C-alpha cells in the first residue's frame, strides 16, 4: 500500500514535469526539400481508388488530380472542357456534342479514343452496379461516337447534366485494375499506395494541358489531428488543409503561411419547422434577431468564417445574394417582442442535437446556447454520435434543432435550395411554404441560365424572410503551407489541386 502511494506521488511529479514542458517551444527550423517534391498531410485513408466507386469527400479531393471527365471544374466555379475540346448544346437542350481534344493520353501512354469515352460514360450511366451510377445521368437516352465526336442525346432537358458529365471520369475501356493501379488522364499519375499510410503521385509529362510543376507529391495519412500539426512542425509535411484556427495557431509564422479558403458549406442552426415552437415564423425570426453571427464566428472559430444569411455561399457567386446576410442584425428587444407576440413572453426551452464527432458544430451550439440565454431561451446541447444523428435527425426528422453544415457536391446550387421544397425527401427541416414550392418548380424547369439565377435568388430571399433556419456562416478552410511553396488555388468544390503548386 505504501508503495502504491509512492508510485502515485512519482507519477504526479512526472505529470507536472510534462506539463511544465508545454509552455516553452523548442522548434528546430525545418529546411525545405531540395528535390522538387512535396508531402501533403491528409486525415483519412482512401475508400476506393476506382473513381466510379469513391464516395468519401477526402478521396475525391485527392484523386481530382488523377482523373478528368469530358469537362472539369475550374477555380472560378465554371465547367470547362477537358478531355472534350468543346461542348455544343443543341437549341432544344436535348443533344450535347463533345468534339474530343487532340492528343489526350492516358497515364499508361495509350491515346484516348472515342470508344474509351463511350465506355466511361456508359459505365457511369448504366453499366456498373447502381452504387456507382450517377442519378443525374439517367436522363441520357443514347451515347454514340461519330467521327471523333461524342454525341449524347437526352430524353428531357436537364440543368444538372453537364455537372454530372464532369464526374463521369474518362477511363481506358475494359481496364479492370482501377482499384489497385488507377489510370486516368489528369495532370498527375498514380505511383504507389500503402494502405493507411500514403499515396504517391508523380507528374504526368504527357498531360494535354498545363503540366504540374512538382515532380512528385506524397499524400501522408495521419488520422490523428495532432499528428498533422506535428508533421508540419517537424518538416515531414509541407501542406495540410482543413485545419482549425487552434491548430494553425501552433505553427510558427516564419515557416508557414496560413491560407484561408472556405469550406463551401452552409452552417446553420437548422430548425424543425414542423415542431412547436418553431412552426411559428415569429419564433424563428426571434432566434435570428437574437443571434449575432459574427459573435459565433469570433467565439467558436477565432474570427475565421464568412457570415451567411441564406442557404447559399459566396463561391456560387452568380447565385449568391449578399444583401440577405444583413437581413437580421442582432436586436434583442425586437427578438423579445416577437417572442411575446408568439406567446412566449418568458422564453422557452429547446434542445440542439449535434453530431459529437464534429467539434466545430458542438462548439457553435455552445455559443448559441449562451447567446440565446439573453432572450430567455434555455438551450440544452445534446451531442449524439454520427450514426444516431444521421438516423434520428436527418432521416427520421426526430429533433427540435441541430447545428450542421450543408454542402453541394457538384457545381450547381440546386442541392442547397431544392431540399427546402415541401415534399422533397431530404427536407429534414420540414420547411413548408407554398410560394417556395411554386418558385422551386419553376427554377428547376428553367432552361435559361439568367432566368434560373433570378428564381434561385427569389428562393434564397424566401428562406431568409421566413427565417426557415438561423443561417450562420460558410466555415473557413484553413490551409497551412510551408513558406516557399506557392500556387495554392481554392475551388468552390472540395478539391485540392496540386498541379498549380510549386517551390519558389
Amino acid at each position, binding site marked *: *500500500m505504501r508503495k502504491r*502511494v509512492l508510485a*502515485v506521488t512519482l507519477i*504526479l511529479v512526472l*505529470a507536472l514535469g510534462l*506539463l511544465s514542458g*508545454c*509552455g516553452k517551444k523548442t522548434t528546430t527550423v525545418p529546411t525545405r526539400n531540395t528535390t522538387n517534391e512535396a508531402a501533403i498531410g491528409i486525415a483519412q485513408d482512401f475508400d476506393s481508388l476506382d473513381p466510379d466507386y469513391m464516395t468519401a469527400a477526402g478521396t475525391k479531393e485527392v484523386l481530382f488530380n488523377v482523373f478528368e471527365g469530358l469537362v472539369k471544374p475550374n477555380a472560378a466555379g465554371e465547367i470547362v472542357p477537358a478531355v472534350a475540346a468543346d461542348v455544343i448544346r443543341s437549341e432544344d437542350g436535348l443533344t450535347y456534342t463533345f468534339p474530343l481534344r487532340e492528343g489526350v493520353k492516358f497515364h499508361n501512354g495509350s491515346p484516348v479514343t472515342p470508344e474509351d469515352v463511350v465506355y466511361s460514360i456508359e459505365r457511369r450511366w448504366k453499366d456498373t452496379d447502381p452504387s456507382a451510377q450517377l442519378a443525374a445521368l439517367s436522363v441520357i437516352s443514347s451515347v454514340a461516337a461519330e467521327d471523333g465526336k461524342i454525341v449524347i442525346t437526352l430524353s428531357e432537358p436537364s440543368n444538372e447534366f453537364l455537372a454530372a458529365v464532369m464526374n463521369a471520369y474518362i477511363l481506358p475501356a475494359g481496364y479492370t485494375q482501377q482499384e489497385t493501379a488507377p489510370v486516368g488522364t489528369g495532370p498527375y499519375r498514380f505511383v504507389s499506395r500503402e494502405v493507411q499510410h500514403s499515396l504517391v503521385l508523380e507528374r504526368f509529362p504527357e498531360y494535354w494541358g498545363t503540366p504540374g510543376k512538382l515532380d512528385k507529391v506524397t499524400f501522408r495519412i495521419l488520422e490523428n*489531428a*495532432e499528428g498533422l500539426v506535428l508533421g508540419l512542425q517537424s518538416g515531414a509535411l509541407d501542406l495540410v488543409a482543413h485545419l482549425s484556427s*487552434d491548430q494553425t*495557431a*501552433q505553427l510558427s509564422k516564419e515557416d508557414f503561411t496560413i491560407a484561408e479558403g472556405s469550406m463551401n458549406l452552409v452552417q446553420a442552426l437548422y430548425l424543425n419547422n414542423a415542431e412547436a415552437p418553431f412552426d411559428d415564423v415569429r419564433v424563428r425570426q426571434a432566434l435570428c434577431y437574437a443571434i449575432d453571427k459574427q459573435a459565433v464566428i469570433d*467565439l*467558436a472559430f*477565432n474570427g475565421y468564417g464568412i457570415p451567411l444569411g441564406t442557404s447559399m455561399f459566396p463561391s456560387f457567386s452568380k447565385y449568391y445574394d449578399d444583401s440577405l446576410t444583413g437581413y437580421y442584425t442582432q436586436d434583442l428587444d425586437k427578438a423579445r417582442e416577437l417572442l411575446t407576440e408568439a406567446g412566449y413572453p418568458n422564453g422557452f426551452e429547446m434542445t440542439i442535437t449535434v453530431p*459529437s464527432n464534429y*467539434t466545430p458544430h*458542438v*462548439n457553435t*451550439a*455552445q*455559443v448559441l*446556447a*449562451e447567446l440565446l*440565454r439573453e432572450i430567455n431561451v434555455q438551450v*440544452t*446541447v*445534446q*451531442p*449524439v*454520435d454520427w450514426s444516431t444523428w444521421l438516423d434520428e435527425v436527418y432521416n427520421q426528422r426526430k429533433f427540435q434543432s441541430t447545428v450542421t453544415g450543408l454542402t453541394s457536391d457538384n457545381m450547381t446550387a440546386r442541392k442547397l435550395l431544392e431540399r427546402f421544397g415541401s415534399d422533397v425527401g431530404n427536407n429534414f427541416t420540414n420547411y413548408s411554404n407554398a410560394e417556395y414550392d411554386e418558385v422551386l418548380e419553376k427554377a428547376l424547369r428553367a432552361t435559361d441560365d439568367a432566368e434560373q439565377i433570378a428564381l434561385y435568388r427569389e428562393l434564397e430571399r424566401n428562406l431568409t424572410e421566413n427565417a426557415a433556419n438561423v443561417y450562420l456562416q460558410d466555415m473557413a478552410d484553413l490551409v497551412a503551407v510551408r513558406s516557399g511553396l506557392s500556387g495554392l488555388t481554392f475551388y468552390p468544390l472540395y478539391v485540392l489541386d496540386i498541379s498549380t503548386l510549386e517551390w519558389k
Partner: protein
Amino acid sequence: MKKPKNIYLTAGLVLTCLVLAVALVGIFWTPYAPTAMKFGRFQPPSFQHLFGTDNFGRDIFSRVLKGTGTTLGIAFSTVTLGALLGTVTGALTGYYGGWLDEALMRLNDALTAFPSFLLALLIVSLVGPGKKYSVVLALGLVFIPSFSRVMRTEFRALRGQNFVTGARLMGAGDARILAVHLLPNTLRTLLPAFTIGFNNAVLAEASLSFLGIGVTPPDASLGYMLAEAQGMLAAGPWYALFTGLTIVLLVFGIGLLGEGLQNHAGDT
C-alpha cells in the same frame, strides 16, 4: 505508549475537505457565470481570472468551481450505487454459498470479462445519453463486480467465525447476523474499496465525458473540461493545467484518506 500519528488520514482529510469546500462554494457562488463567454479567448491567468479563460472566453476558475461539484456528485452517487449493490450480492453469495453463489459469481465473472468501459458505453446508449443519471447508472453497474467480489470474500471468511456461531446459538436470524454482526466487521475492507472506487469513478467520468457521453456541454465537469483542454495545450496550457491539477488533488486526497482509514482500522 504514544500512538504514531496517522499522517495519511490527516493529509487525506485536509485535501478532501479542501476539494469539498471548493465544490460547496461552487454550488452557491462563482466569480462569474460559468457559461458566460465575454472575457476574451485564452486570457492567461490573472487576478481577474485566476485560472485564465478558455477557448470561448469563459472563466476557467468559475467552471472549475462548478465542475468540481458535478464531478464529485457523479462520482459519489456512482460509487455508492456500486458499493450498495455489490455489498448486497457479496454478502448473500458469501454467506449462503451454494447455487446462488455459483450463479451470481459467474454472472459477476461475465461482467468483469467485459471491458468496463464498453459496458458503460453500452448502458449509456441503452438508457439514452445526456441524462446525468444515465452516467451514474452506467458507471454504478460497472463498479458492482469489484465490490461484490471483495465483499464475498469477507463474508465468506467471517461466516465460520465463533462469534457468528455464538450469535446463531443466541437465536439471531440470518438478516440480523448479516447486518449487525458481519457488516461492521467488513468496514475495514469496504472503506478503502469505497475510496479506491471513488477515484476510479472520477477518472471514469472524465473519460466518459471525454467521449462526449457523460456531462453535456455547456455544463462543466472536470472530465469534460480536461477533454476540451487537450486540444488547446498550445493555445492555453493553463486550461489543462488547472483542471488536471484539481482532478489530481481530488483523487490524491481521497486516495490518502482511504489509506489512512485502513491504517486507522488496523490500529484499533
